[in-house]
């Protein structure tokens, strides 16, 4: 039996398939419903309400009070959305109306494939595809998501949707610049302690952080600490705007735009928009963990955890699963921060949003790159 499993899993197609199944099954199909219920329960908690606590899983039914109530709420929501009548407004452009939600959900899901979600199991790295372009692939598919929002807003032939779609496209492109520039800075920063220089390979990025220290703390070079922390803040703010989350949710603000680009969407198509938003959040948090927070590695804290990262990269099934657990818990912490921010801050005005993106974050991101470049050259003596 054991030998049979080994033979089956020695084939690269089976390994690839297993990783694809885990990536879609866990990061998209399992984490999204969990986030939906978390968001609703946490918002209720922060606003001193009860929140959805009635729909429970059949048979196990809260395990005698251990589990919080309402865990099956997303399942009930999904069934309701599946049975709801789908209304396509008669004035809409049918093809683009369908393309909108698909283009919102597919790109962030596709962006997950270059993220290493664990160290390795038996030498097989836990990353769906090890592409030469690395992080650049995620950047490029992220840009496609703008089309989904713009198509959805325009094709509905509704004034609220159009305003929401236009706002979304202008906001997404504005914040993509500071997002891309802060990624550039961290790629350069990762080369500070390595003779080979910067890298776009996410697996290599995580390995270097495991060896030298997390990029948020300067990747092992104390001079780069401000660039690491500052770059993380820039990335985090831009990521909030890229996901249309409060305080940047102007494209869909319920109070003035009745939902913005998804005003005319109902039933499954609406749920695709919602899933796309949550998968986008998961992708952004995974990127943050990979680029800044050391991926699956533990921080080398004053030598106390020396050897822990070597153990995690050991390659047994247990070591692989623990590394996946560390990665997922870091992502969960960031996601909870996202949710807490959403229910804490009020919404910006559009003029404030544009000012922040173009006049504050973009110059700061450029300055961050210049700082990392100058420190990098100074540290290496400056001679070519």
């Amino acid at each position, binding site marked *: 039996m054991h030998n049979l499993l080994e033979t089956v899993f020695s084939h690269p197609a089976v390994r690839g398939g297993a990783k*694809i199944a885990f990536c879609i099954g866990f990061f998209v199909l399992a984490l999204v419903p969990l986030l939906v219920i978390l968001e609703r329960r946490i918002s209720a908690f922060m606003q001193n309400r009860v929140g959805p606590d009635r729909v429970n899983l059949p048979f196990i039914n809260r395990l005698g009070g251990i589990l919080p109530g309402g865990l099956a709420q997303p399942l009930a929501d999904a069934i309701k959305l599946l049975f709801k009548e789908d*209304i396509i407004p008669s004035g809409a452009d049918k093809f683009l109306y369908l393309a909108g939600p*698909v283009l919102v959900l597919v790109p962030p899901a596709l962006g997950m494939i270059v993220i290493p979600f664990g160290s390795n199991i038996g030498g097989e790295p836990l990353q769906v595809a090890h592409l030469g372009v690395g992080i650049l692939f995620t950047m490029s598919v992220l840009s496609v998501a703008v089309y989904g929002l713009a198509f959805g807003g325009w094709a509905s032939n509704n004034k609220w949707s159009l305003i929401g779609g236009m706002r979304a496209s202008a906001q997404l492109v504005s914040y993509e610049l500071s997002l891309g520039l802060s990624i550039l800075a961290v790629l350069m920063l990762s080369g500070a302690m390595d003779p080979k220089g910067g*890298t776009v390979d996410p697996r290599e990025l995580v390995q270097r952080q495991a060896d030298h220290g997390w990029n948020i703390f300067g990747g092992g070079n104390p001079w780069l600490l401000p660039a690491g922390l500052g770059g993380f803040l820039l990335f985090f703010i831009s990521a909030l705007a890229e996901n249309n989350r409060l305080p940047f949710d102007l494209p869909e603000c319920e109070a003035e735009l009745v939902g913005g680009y998804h005003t005319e969407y109902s039933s499954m198509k609406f749920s695709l928009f919602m899933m796309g938003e949550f998968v986008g959040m998961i992708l952004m948090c995974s990127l943050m963990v990979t680029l800044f927070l050391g991926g699956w590695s533990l921080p080398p804290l004053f030598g106390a955890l020396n050897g822990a990262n070597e153990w995690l990269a050991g390659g047994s099934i247990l070591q692989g699963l623990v590394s996946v657990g560390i990665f997922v818990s870091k992502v969960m912490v960031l996601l909870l921060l996202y949710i807490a921010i959403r229910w804490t801050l009020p919404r910006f005005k559009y003029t404030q949003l544009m000012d922040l993106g173009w006049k504050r974050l973009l110059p700061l991101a450029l300055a961050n790159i210049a700082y990392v470049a100058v420190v990098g050259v100074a540290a290496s*003596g400056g001679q*070519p």
Partner: protein
Amino acid sequence: MLFEWANVLVYLLVSIFFILGSLTLGRILRPHRPTPEKLSTYECGEEAIGTAWIQFNVRFYIIALIFLIFDVEIAVLFPWTTIFKEFKLLALLEILLFVGILVVGFAYVWVKGDLEWLKSIGEVKTGPAPGAPERAD
């Protein structure tokens, strides 16, 4: 490397299959009883006035234009980050020149006021338009 791209293709196909599958399942399960009122465009309960496919503000185009230039810059900078260690000062000076040109353009756009979202349209004339009929009330 090619095998890794096969993973990408399979992943893409699986996610598209999942989306189309859930949409088809919904189509089989859900009712379909359209009425003209249901299919009308939502506009706060009023009859929709005109179409939404209108010319929108030119500011969105300007933002898109500035974005395009900076996005190209980012795409050019990506390979630079990987070889930057090799060429050191030379690479730094070259990229400073390249980014400097773009920053001059950015400063020009900023000074010209294209980054201001709120624009003054000059003094707004109040009172009835010339030639408008006197109001009865």
